[in-house]
């Protein structure tokens, strides 16, 4: 499943979202958003807790269904063609998701099998991603002995073992200390340079989004309220503006009375992840 060559004319885009709406009962988590991601870019979906970022990601990764609208990954509809979509995606969920009862190697090996890597390539590929994530020395240790940063890198290795054409990272650095955070980003950046893979990332760390993303979209209460390159967004506010200012400008004062679309649940999930990271 090698990444397709960059920018072939006439070949479908990595992600196309049209009028996406997701409702949970009476709550509208995503309220009619449209955007597209270009091949090879790092696209950041930003917003406060409960803005609808994770819901959007979960529709993209075929985990939940849209109430209306359509989402396509490299031209495959997420609903009609879920298995193909999943083959194309590498997914790092927000909650920690490595199996602590298995070793580092076994965790990645499991995903190599679940992505139908041919038997003869499996072992080499597992070793390759473990090496790329700097985990080769500890691969036979149980994950329960790993530090938070190591667990996150292991999960990246799991997400990369199928050589995804679209890497989806949901709050990849949440709960990590600054050094581990920088390390995760450094590896994502390296990978992207080597493979040209497309990346969709959500984060609330604005300075990370600023340095890493080619383009960002700002979500608030299920809608897109701003979008463009970090440079464009900052310039629109003034010469000295930071992405933090942009965020505050569009979302800012609404945050205090926020908790409409499952913000509490979001926080709970985040805390749980942080807890497991120790």
């Amino acid at each position, binding site marked *: 499943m090698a990444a397709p060559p960059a920018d072939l004319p006439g070949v479908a885009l990595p992600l196309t979202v049209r009028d996406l709406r997701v409702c949970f009962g009476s709550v509208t988590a995503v309220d009619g958003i449209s955007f597209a991601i270009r091949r090879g870019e790092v696209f950041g979906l930003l917003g406060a807790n409960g803005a609808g970022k994770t819901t959007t990601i979960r529709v993209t990764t*075929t985990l*939940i269904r849209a109430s209306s609208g359509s989402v396509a990954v490299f031209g495959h509809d997420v609903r009609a063609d879920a298995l193909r979509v999943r083959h*194309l995606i590498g997914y790092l969920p927000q909650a920690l998701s490595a199996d602590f009862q*298995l070793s580092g190697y076994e965790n990645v090996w499991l995903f190599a099998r679940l992505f139908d890597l041919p038997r003869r390539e499996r072992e080499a590929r597992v070793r390759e991603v473990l090496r790329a994530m700097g985990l080769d020395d500890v691969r036979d240790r149980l994950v329960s002995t790993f530090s938070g940063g190591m667990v996150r890198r292991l999960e990246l290795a799991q997400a990369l073992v199928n050589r995804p054409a679209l890497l989806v990272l949901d709050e990849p650095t949440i709960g990590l200390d600054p050094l581990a955070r920088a390390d995760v980003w450094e590896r994502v950046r390296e990978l992207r340079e080597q493979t040209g893979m497309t990346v969709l990332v959500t984060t609330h760390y604005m300075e990370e989004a600023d340095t890493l993303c080619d383009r960002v979209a700002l979500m608030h209460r299920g809608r897109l309220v701003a979008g463009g390159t970090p440079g464009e967004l900052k310039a629109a506010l003034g010469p000295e503006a930071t992405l933090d200012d942009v965020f505050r400008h569009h979302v800012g004062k609404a945050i205090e009375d926020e908790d409409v679309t499952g913000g509490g649940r979001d926080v709970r999930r985040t805390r749980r992840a942080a807890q497991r990271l120790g």
Partner: protein
Amino acid sequence: MSAAPAAPPSASASAAPRPVAVDVPPWWRLYPNRIVTFWLVELRKIRHDRTELYMRAVQPVLWLLIFGETFSRIRAIPTPPGVSYLAYLSPGIMAQSALFIAIFFGIQIIWERDSGILTKLMATPTPRLALISGKAFAAGVRSVSQVVVILALSAVLQVRFDWNPLHLLGAALVVVLGAAFFSCLSMTIAGIVLHRERLMGVGQAITMPLFFASNALYPVAVMPGWLRALSSVNPMSYEVDALRGMLLGTPTALLLDVGVLAAAVVAGVAAAASLLPRLAR
């Protein structure tokens, strides 16, 4: 929405862009692959932590040594000619201890849900039915350990079994089917109650009725009519019946037994898989 970045390509583009090609293996390769995968993972987990395995061996040993030996002495329960009560009881305890393992298997899926593992598994190219099948047979692998424990104990107690290796293998397969069904029942309950504590409660509440409303301890013939009716719809009874046929050579409707178990597994997998999205939310 003017603020949206990069509007989707307009419909007026010359031709519809073609999707990127992806190979998906056919279902008849996909399902066995997933079942073997979860099976291997379960074996690894057992290898990393054998405590549960040892603890699980305690209960069947008590049942056979205390209950079995005592009731053999009382001779209160009629057994087929030439079969001691201990021999009659062993297959029942084999099924029971597998049931005890499987009925709480849903806890694993709730744990995996809470820890984010389930979400990620569901984002791999593994259909829901294949995921549940894989988990169900993983429970089966765990329960085979009980077959080994009870066979070993039976050998020590000099229970007269049919030690034909093919029959032993058949017995292991029957236990795997039974465990697969009861783990699906557990995962179905997990999909309904969603919380570990509630699952524990429901599991506790139904384990004993499943056990007592079966032929594990006594033959169907001595049951009152209403219990006999319950026993006839309890997959546990068919499991025990098949095990007795395999291990004791008593006359059984083996085809019916295995057929009922297999059908129960299919229904269980379907039920648990249909509730999986509730867990993934």
